[in-house]
């Protein structure tokens, strides 16, 4: 959880600033909010309260809602907190062979394998293959994370495709691996 938070907020770190500006006229706002709540209570609050769903507790609660406390924000450079979906994957020769379309995790949340979509010609012949996380090599080039797989693309393409609904997942590992039927 704590691991992922900085990544997520990296792109949105402006939000707290905006909230601070708003809080200047918080006094007037909270007054009007109070008035509305009182008015709603007069109207026979029962049905109104349920209509708001999450809001039914004591009238003091909405004041908390007005100013959510942001978590502690740390700023991370993009090359240290990069989204992985859609990132290109290169073969050992530096040729782009596909894109990461999913990450498979274990029960502790650690990445186990990347699902790499091999792109065919003009969107046809795409194949999803699960590649062992340890078979991927990450580096930084031009402030971009570069993903390289230490496996021959020909061998990868010969393995059974990844199917999300299946009971077990065939994962390509960096160990030398001979698939039946591959040329």
């Amino acid at each position, binding site marked *: 959880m704590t691991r992922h938070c900085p990544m997520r907020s990296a792109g949105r770190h402006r939000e707290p600033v905006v909230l601070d500006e708003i809080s200047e006229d918080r006094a007037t706002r909270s007054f009007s909010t109070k008035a509305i709540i009182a008015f709603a209570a007069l109207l026979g609050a029962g049905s109104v309260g349920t209509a708001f769903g999450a809001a039914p507790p004591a009238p003091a609660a909405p004041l908390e809602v007005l100013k959510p406390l942001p978590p502690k924000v740390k700023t991370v450079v993009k090359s240290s907190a990069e989204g992985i979906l859609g990132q290109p994957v290169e073969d050992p020769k530096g040729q782009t062979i596909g894109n990461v379309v999913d990450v498979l995790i274990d029960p502790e949340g650690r990445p186990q394998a990347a699902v790499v979509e091999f792109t065919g010609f*003009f969107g046809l012949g795409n194949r999803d293959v699960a590649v062992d996380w340890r078979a991927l090599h990450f580096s930084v080039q031009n402030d971009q994370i570069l993903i390289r797989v230490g496996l021959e693309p020909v061998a990868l393409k010969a393995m059974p495709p990844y199917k999300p609904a299946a009971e077990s997942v065939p994962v390509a590992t960096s160990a030398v691996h001979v698939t039946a039927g591959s040329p």
Partner: protein
Amino acid sequence: MTGAKRSLAGLDWLNFFTAEVQTGFGAFIAVYLTLHHWTGLAIGSVLSLGAVVTLASQIPAGLVVDWMPSKRVAAAIGLAALGASALLFVFVPSQFGIGLAEILHGFAGCMLGQAIAAISVALVSRHVLGLRLGRNVRFASVGNGIAAIAMGVGGAWIAGWSVFALAAAMCIPAGLALVAIGPTRPQRDALEVRRVDRAPLAEIGALFLDRRLLAFMVCMAFFQLADSAMLPYAGRKIAGETSTLADIAIAAAIVLPEIVMALLSPLVGRGAERHGRRLILMLGFAAEPLRGFLFGVVHGPALLVLAQGLNGVSAAVVGVLLPLIAADIAHDHGHFNLTVGAIGVAGGVGTVASTAVAGAIDSLVSERAAFFTLAFAGLFATLLVWLIMPESGRSTPRGVAAEPVRS
């Protein structure tokens, strides 16, 4: 006379360039959105949105084109909206932009296809309509093939957006071809001839009780059930079995059916006029079970690509016969575009079911089982044509341009 010739040439090139535009909105969209860091779920959602809009647009687009006095204006609106949709793909690849583009494309694609069919029916007399529709399919398949290669190369080596830029650009020559087509009003009365004096609703009721329409809708639903999911799975199999040059093999699998279509479609049109629609339809449908069976049993890129070539047979037959049979039915009831739309809905339901069924069988059983299931659906569709589909047109003996005879 020269005006009529110019109109027909305009229609040729309208088919050609419209096919080029439409090629951009194919399987490449998923690749493009992946490059824009879309998740598989988001891509699936927006493609489903497009599919739903396309399905839901069939009947409304048919009603609109039936109602519009100028089919050329209908085509122009459809073309402009397709161009706008392609530009949205280039410039606004956000959830909103792509969603809007898919909605626009869903309706405009239907409308343009409907308008082209209506213009074709209006431009030629009824006994040569099969030949005309064969020519439409020939030009469209050549356009598809050329565009697929150009866009495939552009998408892979230039940039993803070049595919949609090219699609948008092709709207311009398509528009010029449309302008070359003269007014079609005088000939259009041909379709109104048989309309009996009934209230509009009763007229539509009679149309939907026509056995030919109902039977053809059922046949088309099963045909699309067999056809739609076959290409993506075949592509995956070709790519998986081809160690090197997979791109070449897949490009061949895209282009070969288009070549077969271009060669075959005029023959299909002539055959449908000479030997009746039913026989040709049955022969075309029969290519599907064979294709599914071959995908299930053969290995190696060459044989798989050849099997995909069979798709050219069925696609040529459906491409020519769908509007032709609709024109046969509309000859008695009017509402040509509504008829095309109704058949489109039936086919669309088959398409949706095809993807779902093939996906489920592929992930739960095997790829081969998925191919065999699709082949079985194709066999069933072929049998349905034999069992329930009546002959919709009259087969005119060679060279006789007879007045239409009511069957």
